[in-house]
Structures are given as structure tokens and as C-alpha cells.
């Protein structure tokens, strides 16, 4: 009799607890990650590509059961590449949508306006490609996934000048030219500092308005000063213009390139083709054997599939892997500290070396990478009108830093 009652009680207790467990397990509250992203406007090409990379991360994580056994959801709005939209969006995300975690939009102009808000709420803020934003704010929970290095403004161009120093005979004069816009000017300022520190003589140092149509007068003016090396800070349309003009004018420089955004984008690489040969430019990831990090090839395959027909970069080598990575470090931290506590997450992010699709990531005290990994890459053997050649190694050889080097420089820059 007692055994029967005991059994009945056990079954009842079991049923009750199973009921309640299944009740909560049926609807686990999702973890909401909020952000704004440039889906229209000047940076939309990159923003949309980044979003695709981020969604792949979300799907990968959810396939494995989510974070802390909860599914991950995104809440995001288009900031239209307008800084004025960012404060409103982030306050909506935090105060109305009540997201659990935030990450940044893409680009300095879109990251900076969110800083005061996340600082006041003491949130951990993984950021996507903004140059030296934290120099102004000095926020201890800011983390920048762009591998510029602890001193972003100078680390950016250091490799270019160090490569120049290694050549014999050593080049003496440098021309610096940049677009009149945030990133390019910062890159040029860093180049100036590096040039002075390393003993180069600056013979040309001017900027141009981004609306410039024809670059031949500028390249000619540069040529007239006979520089040994030419450092350019530019955005996609002007990068294209400069490369084309350099070829048309027949620029005779020993080293050409440096900080040209856009030469990492598939459509532009395809169009410029052999005109790119010899150019030494920055990049963050190229399909060279030295950079074959675990997971990156699988990620790119998924990205390239998802990017079809969306009007974004078809290869996705530049921004998407880092968009995946800045969520990876956040997600791994959440799992490691087993909570959504911002302080714990930030502390973990500061002291850990993460394994991501872009390799090992370690943040320094100011939120930038502890060690710079701005690659100096040289275009080689590029054929005309061929997109697929860029999918594999050999066309963008890594020259610097030493630990990622995959080939020797072809010097001087030949047309």
C-alpha cells in the first residue's frame, strides 16, 4: 500500500516537474542583440555585406542551441549612414526594444554617436571598423575588431613605410595624398607621422575632395615632385580613379598604394584587373596559405552562397569575416561567464585570447587589438576580367607583418 502511494507520488511529482520544465523549455526567452547598420547611403555596400556575415553567425549559433541555451535574435535598424540617426536608434534598442546586448554599426561616423549612450549604460560594445574612436572616449568596455593595432592611426601605415625601409637602395622621398574624408585623412596623418619618424622627406602632401571626377591632374602633380614612394588614403571611387590615372600618366614610383579602401572589393578588383599589379595596399584578410584560419573557408562558402543576387561583394573577404568575428568574441564571452552581465563580459573580453574565423584575437587595454595585423598586400599576376582568380591564393601576396608573410615583394612598382 505504502509502496503504491509512494510510486503514485513519485509519478505525480515527476509529471508535475516534467510539465513545468517543458513549460519553460517550450518558450526560452531569446537573447536579443541590437545594433544599427548602414543599409542605405554611402557605406551600404559594406554594411549589407556585414549584415549577411552577422546573420550567418546567428544561424550557426542557433543551430548549436543558442547562447546559454537561449536562441539569439537580432533587432536592428538602418542608420542610412547618417550619424544623426544613431542616437535615436540605440536609445530605442535599449529603452523600448530592451535588447540584452549591443554591438556597433559600421564605420567611425556611425560608431561615435552611440558611444555616449553605451557608456552611460555601461554596456560592452564590440565595434566594427572604426578608426581610433576610443582615443576620444577612453571607454574601458569598447572593443574594436578591426586589427589596426594599439595605436591605430600610425599602425595603419607603419607596414608600408617599413617595407620601404627594407628596400635597397632605400627610398628617400614620399608623396602623401588623401581624400577629404574621415578615414583617409586619419590614415594620411598617420602616414605623415611614420614618414617623419622613419626619416623620409615628404615632397607632396595634399588632399582632394571626394567628388573629384578625374584624377590625372592630381597624379601628374604628384609625379612632378618625383617621389620615390606614394602613399594614398582613398575611398572606393577615388581608389579606382587613382589607379587608373596612375597607369594612364605612367606614374614612376617605387612603391604605390598604402591606404586605399576599395581595392579589397571584388567588383573593383575585377574591373581594374592587371592595372593593380604591383600595387602594395592594406588588407585584413586574403586567401593566402598563411591566413587559413580554422573556420574561415567554411564561413566564406556560406557567405558567398548567401550573397548571391543581393548586390553586395560576391567574395566577401574584407568585412564579412570580421563582422562574424565581432559577434564570435561576444558570444564566446557570454558563454564563458555564463551570464549577460556586462561587467563580467567586458572583463572576460579584456583578458582572453579568442579563437575566431579571423584567427586569434586579443584586445589591449584601449579596446584595440593588442598587436597590429594590418597586412600589406601586393597584387600579382592579376589577369583581365576574371573574378574567380581572387578567390584563391597567389594574387594578393602578403608582404608584412613577418609572421603572416606569404611571398617576396616585387620592387620597384612596375607598370
Amino acid at each position, binding site marked *: 500500500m505504502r509502496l503504491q502511494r509512494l510510486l503514485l507520488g513519485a509519478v505525480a511529482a515527476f509529471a508535475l516537474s516534467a510539465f513545468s520544465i517543458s513549460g519553460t523549455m517550450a518558450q526560452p526567452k531569446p537573447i536579443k542583440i541590437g545594433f544599427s547598420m548602414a*543599409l*542605405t547611403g554611402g557605406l551600404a555596400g559594406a554594411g549589407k555585406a556585414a549584415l549577411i556575415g552577422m546573420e550567418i553567425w546567428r544561424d550557426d549559433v542557433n543551430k548549436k542551441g543558442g547562447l546559454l541555451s537561449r536562441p539569439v535574435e537580432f533587432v*536592428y*535598424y*538602418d542608420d*542610412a549612414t*547618417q*550619424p*544623426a*540617426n*544613431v*542616437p*535615436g*536608434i540605440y*536609445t*530605442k534598442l*535599449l*529603452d*523600448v526594444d530592451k535588447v540584452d546586448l549591443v554591438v556597433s554599426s559600421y564605420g*567611425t*561616423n556611425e560608431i*561615435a*554617436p552611440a*558611444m*555616449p*549612450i553605451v557608456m*552611460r549604460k555601461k554596456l560592452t560594445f564590440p565595434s566594427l571598423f572604426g578608426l581610433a574612436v576610443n582615443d*576620444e*572616449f577612453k571607454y574601458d568596455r569598447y572593443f574594436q575588431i578591426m586589427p589596426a593595432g594599439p595605436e591605430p592611426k600610425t599602425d595603419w601605415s607603419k607596414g608600408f613605410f617599413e617595407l620601404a625601409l627594407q628596400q635597397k637602395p632605400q627610398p628617400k622621398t614620399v608623396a602623401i595624398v588623401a*581624400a*577629404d*574624408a*574621415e578615414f583617409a*585623412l*586619419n590614415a594620411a*596623418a598617420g602616414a605623415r607621422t611614420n614618414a617623419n619618424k622613419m626619416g623620409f622627406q615628404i615632397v607632396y602632401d595634399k*588632399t582632394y*575632395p571626394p567628388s573629384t571626377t578625374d584624377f590625372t591632374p592630381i597624379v601628374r602633380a604628384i609625379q612632378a615632385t618625383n617621389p620615390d614612394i606614394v602613399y594614398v588614403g582613398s575611398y572606393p571611387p577615388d581608389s579606382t580613379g587613382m589607379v587608373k590615372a596612375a597607369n594612364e600618366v605612367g606614374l614612376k614610383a617605387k612603391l604605390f598604394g598604402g591606404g586605399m579602401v576599395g581595392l579589397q572589393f571584388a567588383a573593383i578588383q575585377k574591373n581594374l584587373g592587371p592595372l593593380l599589379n604591383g600595387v602594395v595596399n592594406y588588407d585584413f584578410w586574403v586567401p593566402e596559405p598563411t591566413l587559413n584560419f580554422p573556420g574561415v573557408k567554411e564561413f566564406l562558402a556560406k557567405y558567398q552562397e548567401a550573397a548571391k543576387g543581393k548586390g553586395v561583394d560576391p567574395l566577401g573577404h574584407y568585412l564579412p569575416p570580421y563582422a562574424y568575428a565581432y559577434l564570435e568574441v561576444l558570444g564566446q564571452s557570454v558563454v564563458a561567464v555564463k551570464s549577460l552581465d556586462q561587467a563580467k563580459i567586458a572583463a572576460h573580453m579584456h583578458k582572453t585570447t579568442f579563437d575566431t574565423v579571423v584567427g586569434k584575437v586579443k584586445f589591449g587595454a584601449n579596446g584595440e587589438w593588442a598587436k597590429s595585423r594590418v597586412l600589406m598586400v601586393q597584387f600579382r599576376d592579376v589577369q583581365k576580367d576574371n573574378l574567380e582568380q581572387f578567390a584563391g591564393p597567389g594574387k594578393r601576396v602578403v608582404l608584412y607583418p613577418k609572421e603572416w608573410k606569404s611571398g617576396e615583394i616585387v620592387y620597384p612598382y612596375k607598370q
Partner: protein
Amino acid sequence: MKSAAFWGSLLALLAAGLALTEAFENEYYFNALYLILQGTLMAVAWNVLGGFTGYVNFGSAGFFAMGAYTTVALNKAFGLPLPLLILAGGAVGGLVGLGLGYLTLRLKGVYFAIATLAMAIVIETLVNNWSYVGGAKGSYLLTPEEYLWFKSYIQMLFIVMLLLTLAAVAVSRMLSASRLGRGLAAIRDDEVAAECSGVPTLRLKLISTTVMGAMMGVAGAPFPFFVTFVDPVSAFNLFIAVNAIAMPMIGGTSHWIGPVIGALLVGSTQEVVKVTVSSELNVLIVGVMLVVFITLAPQGIVGLARKYWRARPS
């Protein structure tokens, strides 16, 4: 609108704004309202020259940015408090407006509009090359440490913008009802005839451009604190210029309340779309609203209302 009713409504709106800051901590609404109010202020300012006087200003972004960059420069140099920065922004905007008036003495219609566009581009190039305020690199402005009794600085900025907008509406109304306003309307309708009737057209035009410039400078002055990072691209934005024209046109340019209605309608729609539909469609909204309203209601909402009242049996 009768005086008492008008001033009463202004005070009521101010009180409502203050009540809002007490009731809500949620910052998002204040961010959105700030932008709507900024748009209203710009629309009211534009209408002083555009609707009242009949001169179309394409370069509104130039005046706005002057106000913003005056704040950046003075804040960096002297660390002035916000009210003084606003006064300075207004003064600079007004001076530039006065200058514009002088330089464009003989220009009418579309020539004047092109001149304003040229002026905005020249100012933008000057700012781009002015390294003290960061040039094209942009400038960071840390948000104000003090925000009086409010719960956050965005609440304070919201109340500031509310005050400025209400003041501008009051000025606009005073202008339109005054002798000055009648002179402006005469210029708008037929400048030559006005000149012949003894209206001091030059003086009135100068007053008009100065008032417009000052109001737009005032609208731009708190902007750096709102957005924290200012660069010429975002300050000299095409949208600021387009909204400044679109809002009064949709609301109706002939009456002082037109730009207010237009700004509230278009501004709210933009804010709502920003956080619901999002994406390219934001820009489409402005385009479609403009085309639809201008085609179907060329006199704006005010014009529609007037037609409706006239059509009603008395």
C-alpha cells in the same frame, strides 16, 4: 489665431514638454522628438524667406552647419555653456544670411536659388579645410556633463530645442502679421510693383535673409551635442536642405503654421519609418510624399484646409 489662444498654446506645449521629461525616462522618444523639432525649426526658418518673401533657398544645410560648427569652434576654444553657444550660432547664421542678402541683390527666382547652392558649397569647402574644427576628419564633442534638473542630457537638449522652436514659431507669426510681413508678401507677389509702391524691398529682403539665417544657425547650434561626432558630410547633408524645402511645401508656404504642420507630418513619418520599415524606403517616403502632395495639393495642407472651409456651406 487670436493672440491669447496662440500664446496659451505655446505655454501649454512647453508645459507638456516639461511634463514629458518628468514622466518618461525612456530616451528614445526624446531623441526622435529632438529631430522632429529640429526639422520644424528649419522649416519655419526656410519659410520666412521662401514662403513669405518668395525666395527659394537651396543652401539651408550651409546655415545649419554654420551654427553647428560655431558650437564646435567656440566649445573647443572657450568651453562656453549651451545658451551662449546658441546665441553665437544664431549670430553667425544671421551674419551669413545678411551677407547672402547683400551679395544677391540683383538676383531673382532661380538665379537666387543657384547662388544659395553655390554659397553652401563654398562654405562646405572652407569648413573642410579648416583644421581647427577637424576639417573633413570631423570633430568629437563629448556630451554635456551638466543637464540641470533633467534625468539625462537628451532631455535637456529636447527642452532646449522645444523652446527654440516655439520661439521661432512666435517670431514667424509676428512677422507674418506685421507691416513687415505685408511688405514681404508684396515682394513675393510682385517685386517690381512693390518697389513702385514704396516698399523698401532691399531692406526687407535683408531682414528676411538675416532672420532665416539666424534661425537656421540656432537650429544647428545644439546639433554637435546631440550627435557627438560632427563632420562636414553629416552637417552639410542634402537631407537637411531637402527637408527644409519639402516640409513647408507640404504644409503650405503662405501661412506661418504651414511649415509646422508639414514638419510634424513629414518628420514624424520619417521617425516612425526609421524604426519600423527601415532601409531604403525611408528615402522613398520623402520622395513619394513630395510628389504626391505637390501634385495633388500644390498649396500644401493649409491650402487644402482653406479650400475645404471655403467650400463648406456657411
